[in-house]
């Protein structure tokens, strides 16, 4: 590793310049929150699975950066160290971690995170999750 290049890259001006460019690139890309596309091939067939979540909490839409991987587990880029079998559990953790965004919280501790199961018995928050999946299967070459 070139120490001089490392030193140069570490300068706050270098980091700042890089991050400005990166944030501009990201802001110019289309956002498709709560929407993911999985593709696979099986016996010559191309499988495309589009999943879209419509989540409301207390009647208000919650637009989360969700994704579903090939094993069917759900992840959210706002929660980089979590992965869930159920999006219901995911939304419970979002409510725990981001109460200011959810609003109407009754004095919940901003910094605390409760296990989803325990939380379910405590919260009066009304959650609704609907999941629509479209499976398109087409013969390759047609």
């Amino acid at each position, binding site marked *: 590793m070139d120490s001089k290049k*490392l030193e140069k*890259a570490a300068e706050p001006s270098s980091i700042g310049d890089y991050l400005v460019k990166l944030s501009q690139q990201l802001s110019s890309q289309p956002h498709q929150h709560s929407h993911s596309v999985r593709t696979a091939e099986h016996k010559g067939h191309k499988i495309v699975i589009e999943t879209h979540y419509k989540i409301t909490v207390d009647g208000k839409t919650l637009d989360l950066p969700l994704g579903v*991987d090939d094993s069917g587990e759900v992840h*959210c880029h*706002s929660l980089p160290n979590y992965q869930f079998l159920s999006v219901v559990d995911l939304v419970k953790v979002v409510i725990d971690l*981001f109460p200011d965004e959810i609003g109407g919280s009754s004095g919940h501790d901003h*910094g*605390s995170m409760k296990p989803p199961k325990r939380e379910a018995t405590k919260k009066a928050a009304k959650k609704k999750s609907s999941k629509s999946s479209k499976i398109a299967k087409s013969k390759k070459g047609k």
Partner: protein
Amino acid sequence: MAVRRHNILNNATARDAYIRGVRLLKAEASGRTMADFSIPGPATSVSTYDLFVIWHHLAMNVFTPPGNSAGRNSAHRGPIFLPWHRVMLLLLEQNLQRVLNDTTFGLPYWDWAADGDRPPARQTSSRIWANNCMGGSGNPVTTGPFAFSPTNRTSWRVRVIGTGTGSMVQVNQGLRRALAASVATLPRTASVNLALALTPFDASTWDTSSSGFRNRLEGWRTEATTSPPGLHNRVHVWVGGDMAPSSSPNDPVFYLNHCNVDRLWEGWMLRNGRTYLPSASAPTSLSGHRLNDPISSPLSGAAFTPASVLNVTTQYTYDAVP
């Protein structure tokens, strides 16, 4: 000359220098404002420390390659997890050396598995949470060097956080921790040893369901007797508060965790050789994670690649490697 990275609980000099260094970086204006990063609100100055917070958040939103359904991004959920964080730590370490005016300074690490071996009730009373180290739990944290004081402008302030909906917002608040609130225990040495015994480095499907060492250390999969989150992920979740969202470098404990993760990777390489997968010839569906792909960082081009950071012994070594 290579610097030495020490266990923060065994080296008071490294501990105190680290605390002083991150506080200096927090007080140093980077020359950039929140507006430069399209963060809504006033054009508040961004500190050098907070550049790293913003970097971590943005890296999470760079999908590699774009549109991959596994959710692999330029820093997480795939093979690049360890090389990317190694670069991040190197750049922070360079900045700490600069503000400390000490080219021999090495980032300390937190051997969290040693605390994980203690009874659960004693894990939150480890010396790392003492007043002379990282301080304790709270919303906000009120003890130690990162305690919040509303009347003291020099007290540790969180200025930018990642939101649930994936954006960044400005705040002016104290650091939050909720030790052991979400998961009761830290990872244990036995789990670390099982991870170190895994080969290869990574494997198909190169994501959060992979069977290799990287995925076990990142913490998406655990041994049969333990439930996720594991190892690295579990430490984030156990500390909680500001360690949980995409802006987790807001807590200086972030770097102690990742320095330990980096140390464990070094230990794995000493056992298995400085090898990495996927190879340079892997398909483009793994772009951003292959051996010779550029690591997303301030150093453009191919200067930082997984291949280039496999052996960093000219930069730093550890006082002890498992």
